[in-house]
C-alpha cells in the first residue's frame, strides 16, 4: 500500500462532499457530473447555463491546483488509445443508461439514502474491480 495517500484523499474527499452539499443547499440541484454533461450537450426545457458554469468551475479548480502545484499534475493513462476510446464510449453510454456516475450516485444519491444509488454504486465498483482483475491478472 505504498501508493496510499490518506491525507490528500481526506482533504479532497471533504472538498467534493462540500461541493455537492453546497450545490444542493444553495441551488437545489444534484452535482452529478454525467447528468450535468448530458444536459449541457442535449439541453431540454431546463437551463443549460448552470451546467456550463459548474463545468467551468471544475476546470478552474483544476487550473488552481496546477497553479499551487508549480504547473504539474500527475495524469498517467495506461490504456492504449483504442481502449481509451472504448472506455469513454462505455462511460458515456453507461452513466446515462444507469442515470448517474460516481458523483451523482456515489456522493449525492447515497447521501439522499436512495436505494437506486446504493445499488448502482455497488454495481459499478464491482464491475470496475472485475474489469481491472481481468485486464491485469488473467
Amino acid at each position, binding site marked *: *500500500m505504498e*501508493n496510499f495517500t*490518506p491525507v*490528500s*484523499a*481526506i482533504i*479532497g474527499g*471533504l*472538498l*467534493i*462532499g*462540500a461541493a455537492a*452539499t*453546497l450545490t444542493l*443547499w444553495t*441551488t*437545489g*440541484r444534484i*452535482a452529478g457530473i*454525467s447528468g450535468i*454533461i448530458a444536459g449541457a*450537450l*442535449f439541453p431540454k426545457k*431546463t437551463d443549460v447555463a448552470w451546467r456550463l*458554469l*459548474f463545468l467551468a*468551475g*471544475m*476546470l478552474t479548480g*483544476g487550473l488552481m491546483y*496546477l497553479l499551487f502545484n508549480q504547473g504539474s499534475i500527475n*495524469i498517467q493513462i495506461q*490504456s492504449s*488509445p483504442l*481502449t*481509451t476510446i*472504448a472506455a*469513454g*464510449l462505455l*462511460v*458515456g*453510454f*453507461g452513466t*446515462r*443508461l*444507469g442515470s448517474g*456516475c*460516481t*458523483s451523482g450516485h*456515489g456522493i*449525492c444519491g447515497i447521501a439522499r439514502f436512495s436505494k*437506486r444509488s446504493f*445499488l*448502482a454504486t455497488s454495481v459499478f465498483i464491482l*464491475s*470496475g*474491480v*472485475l*474489469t*481491472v482483475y481481468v485486464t491485469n491478472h488473467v
Partner: protein
Amino acid sequence: MSENATAPETISNQTALSLFMAGVLFGLGLTISGMTNPAKVIGFLDFFNNWDPSLLLVMTAGLAVSIPGFQFVTKTEHPLFEPRFYLPTRTDIDAKLLLGAMLFGLGWGLAGFCPGPAITSLISLDGNVFLFVLAMFAGVTIHHNAFD
C-alpha cells in the same frame, strides 16, 4: 425525441456564482485527492496488486460531509437561492440501472476515468484525456439518440 429546447431558464446571479464555486471546490477536491490520475483509480480497483485504498477514503470523506449535509438540506423548505429542489424522483430498480452501472464500471476499469475527473483533467492538455472525453460525449450522444 423532440430537441426543441426552449430558451434557457434564467438563473439568478447568486445561483450562478454558487454553482461556479461548487464546481471549483469539486475540481480542487478531485485534483488534490489524486482522483484525476487514472493510474491511481486503477490502483484502487486492483485489489490483488499493491492495493491503494485512497479512492475509498475519498468517497468516505465525501460522504462524511454529504450525508449529514443532504439530510439537513432536504429537510429545509427550499434551497437558499431557489424556490424548489430539483431532485430525482425514481425509486424503482430496473434493468437499465443495473446494466448502465455495469457498463460504466467496465469503462471505468478499462481507462481509470469517470466523468468528473475526466473533465477536470482536460486542464493537463493531455491528448489522451481529450480522446476519452470526446468518446464519452459520443457515448452520451448514442444514448440520447437511442433512448431520449
